[in-house]
C-alpha cells in the first residue's frame, strides 16, 4: 500500500468520526471537539500531500487552519457559555425554540 493512501485513510477515518460525532453527540463541548477532529483530519491530509508533492503550500495551509480553528473555538465557547446562562444546560437540543 503506498504511503499516501494510508494517510488518506487515517484522515478519512478521523473526519468520519468527527462528522458522526457532530451529528449524534448532545453535549456542546463534545460537538466542538468533534469539529476540531474534522479540521485536524484536514490537516493530516494537507501535510501528507505537502510531503509527497514536496511543496510547502500544504504546511502553510495547515498553520492557518490551526489558527483559524483556535479563533473559531474561542467564539464557540463564548456561545456555549451564553447558552448555559440562558438555559442552564449545554445540551444542543435545548436550543430548538426556532423551528417550523
Amino acid at each position: 500500500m503506498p504511503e499516501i493512501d494510508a494517510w488518506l485513510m487515517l484522515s478519512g477515518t478521523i473526519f468520519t468520526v468527527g462528522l458522526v460525532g457532530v451529528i449524534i453527540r448532545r453535549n456542546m463541548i463534545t460537538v466542538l471537539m468533534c469539529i476540531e477532529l474534522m479540521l485536524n483530519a484536514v490537516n493530516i491530509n494537507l501535510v501528507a500531500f505537502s510531503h509527497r508533492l514536496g511543496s510547502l503550500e500544504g504546511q502553510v495551509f495547515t498553520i492557518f487552519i490551526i489558527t483559524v480553528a483556535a479563533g473559531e473555538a474561542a467564539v464557540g465557547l463564548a456561545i456555549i457559555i451564553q447558552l448555559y446562562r440562558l438555559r442552564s444546560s449545554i445540551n444542543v437540543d435545548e436550543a430548538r425554540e426556532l423551528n417550523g
Partner: protein
Amino acid sequence: MVNPWLLLLVPLLPALGAAINGFRAFWWPKTPKNRAITNAIAIGSTALSALLAAYSVLSYVRGGTEHAFQHVYYSWIPAGIGQVTGGFISNFGIDFAFRLDPLSCTMLLIVTWVGCLIHIYATGYMSHDTGYTRFFTYLNLFMFMMLLLVLGANYMVMFVGWEGVGLCSYLLIGFYYDKNFAAEAGKKAFIANRVGDFGFILGIFLIFNTFGTSDYGRVFAQITAHGHAYAGVATAICLLLFVGACGKSAQIPLYVWLPDAMAGPTPVSALIHAATMVTAGVYMVVRSNALFRLSPTAMAVVAIIGAVTAIFAASIGLVQNDIKKVLAYSTVSQLGFMFLAAGVGAFTAAIFHVMTHAFFKACLFLGAGSVIHGCGGEQDMRKMGGLREYMPKTHATMLLATIAISGIPPLAGFFSKDEILGNAFGYSIPLWLIAVVAATFTAFYMFRLYYMTFRGKYRGAHVEGIEESEPKHAGHDLIGSHTHLDQGDQHSDKGHGHHDDVHLPHESPASMTGVLWILAILSVIGGLVGFPTGLFGGAKETIFQRWLEPILVPIGDHHFHFHEASKSTEVVLILVSIGVAVFGIALARRWYFSDPSWSTPKRLGTNFSFIHQVLENKYYVDEIYNATAIGGTVKLARALSWFDANILDGLVNLVRHITVIVLGHGSSMFDKYVVDGAVNGVGAGAREGSSALRRMQSGFVQNYALVMGGGIVLLAAVYMFTKA
C-alpha cells in the same frame, strides 16, 4: 411628423396624476380630500393625454400610414457584448420605444377617450365613497399601464404594461377590500392572470430566442424575409402567446375570473373589464398577426377557442339574474367573437369589434351602473322593472347600446359582427353556425335584460317571494352596502335612499348621463367606418380595413387564404345575421314583455330543469376546478407525508417525479396547472405541501447537520445515476 416627446406625455400624464393623487390618498389617509382637486388632477391628466393622443394620431396620419412611426427613447435592457445566438441573427437589446401605426392609433384613441369619459362618469358614481382619491389613483395608474401596453414598440414594453394593468385590475377588483369576496375575487383574477402571464412570458422568451429581438418591426421584417424558416416555431410561439391572451381576455379555460371581477366598482367593470384591458389579448394577437398567419394550427386553435367561448358564455348569460353578471358573461362572449375573427384571419374585423364593443359595452356597463346607483345598490333584475319612467335618459342610452350589441343595422354592432360572421362562414361552416347561435343568444339575453330592467312594472317594493329563491351572489357591487364607509355628512338625499321604507329609483346626475349619451351616440355611428369604400361601386374593402391594411405585414412566401364569399352569399349572410338578431329580440319580447308573469321561461325552467340548473350554475366550472384542486391536494399531501417519512430517499424520488412531470409531460403539465391552478387550487395545494415540508424543519440543529450529510449522499447519488 409625430412629436415623440408629446407622444411620451400621453402615458406620462396619467402616471403623474396617479403619483399626485396617490400621495394625497395615502399620506394623510384620515383627512378628507378636496374632491375638486382630485377631479382636476385625475380628469385633467387623462383629458390632456386624450387630446395629445388625438394630436399625435392626426400628425401621424398626415405623414401617411404606410410606415409605422417608431421612436426609441433609450436603450432599456442592453444586449450582451457581441453575442451571437444560433444562426444568422445577432442579439439585439431591448429598447424603451413607442410605435404608432394604424393598430396602435386605434387602440390609443379608444383607451384615452373611453378612459377619459369613464373618469368623468366615475366622479358622479363614486361621489359617496370615502376611497374617492384612492380610486382615481388606481384608475390613472391603470391608464398609464394600458397606454404603455398599447404604445410599446416591442413585446417587453408590452409586457410591462401587461403586468401593470393586471396589478391595477387586482387592486380595483379588491377595491372594497373590507368585503371578503372582493378580496377573493381579486385573488382569483390574479391567479388566472398569472397562468396566462406564464404563457406570455415564455412566448416572449421564445420570440427572443428565435429572432434575437423582441421588437415588432424587426421580428416582422425577418418574417417577411424568411417566412418559411419560422413556420414550426411560430406554432409554439403563437400558442404560448395565446395562453397569455386567454388569461387577460378571459377565454376558456381561464375566463372564470372575469364574472367575479364584477365585485369591483362599476366604472372599473366598464373601463377595465369591458372596454380596454380585457381586449389587450385581442390586441396582442392582432399585433402578432404575422406570426399567427405562419401557423394555421395556432389560427385554428384561436378560432375554435373563440367560438366555443362565445357560445359557452352566451348560454350562461341567458339565465343570469344579476345585471352585471349578464354583462360580464356577455363580455366574455363578445371577446370570443373577437378571437374567432382573429382566428379566421379577419384581423381587422377583430379590432373593429374591439372598437364597437368598447363603445356599446362601456355604455351598457355605465348604464347598468346608473341603474344600480338609482336603485340603491340593487343588482337583481327581478327586483327592477319599469325603470323607463324613472330614469328616461339611462333608458334611452341603454336601449341604443342594446340594439347595437344585438346587431341591428345601422348601429355599430351590426357592422363588426356581420364582418366576423361573414369571415367565419368563409373559414368553416360549423364555426359560423356556432357564432350565429351565439349571436342569437346575445340578442335574446340583452333584450331580456332590457325588458326585465326597464319595462313592465317596478318590482323593487315587493320582493319577499324572490328573496329566498336564490342566495345572493358573492359578486355584488357594493354601491349600496359601502355607504357605511362614508363619514356621513355629505350624504345627500339624491343618492342611496335605501333607508327609506318606500324607495323609488331616480335618475343619475348629469356627469353620468352625459357620458352615457356620448357613448350611446358612438354606439350608433361608430360602425359607419365599416361601410365599404365603394359603397355602390366595386370595392368591397371597408374604410376600416383600408385604414388597418398596413399592419398586415407580408409574410414571405406564406399566404393565408380565406375564401371570399360571393356577392349573393354575402347578402344572404347579412340577412341571416339580421334575422337571428330580430328573432332573439322577438323571443325576449314575447317571453319577458308581452307576458308580465314570465310564464314561458319559468315553465321551461321547470321542464328542462337539468339544463336550467347547469346554466344557472355556470356549467359548474368553479365547482369542477375546486373539486379537482382538492383531489390534487390530497394526492400531493399524501406524496409529501411519505416524503417526510423518507427524507433522503424521498428527496431523490420527488425530484425525479417533478422532472418527469415537468419535462416528460410538458403539455399535460399545463393542463394540470390550469385545472389545479385556476382558482385557489394552487394556493391550497402548495400550502398543504409546504406545511408537510415545514415539519422537516424540526429545530434540532443536528437534524440539519444530518440533512446536510444526506445532501452530500444525494449529490453522490445524483452523480452516479445521471449521464454526463
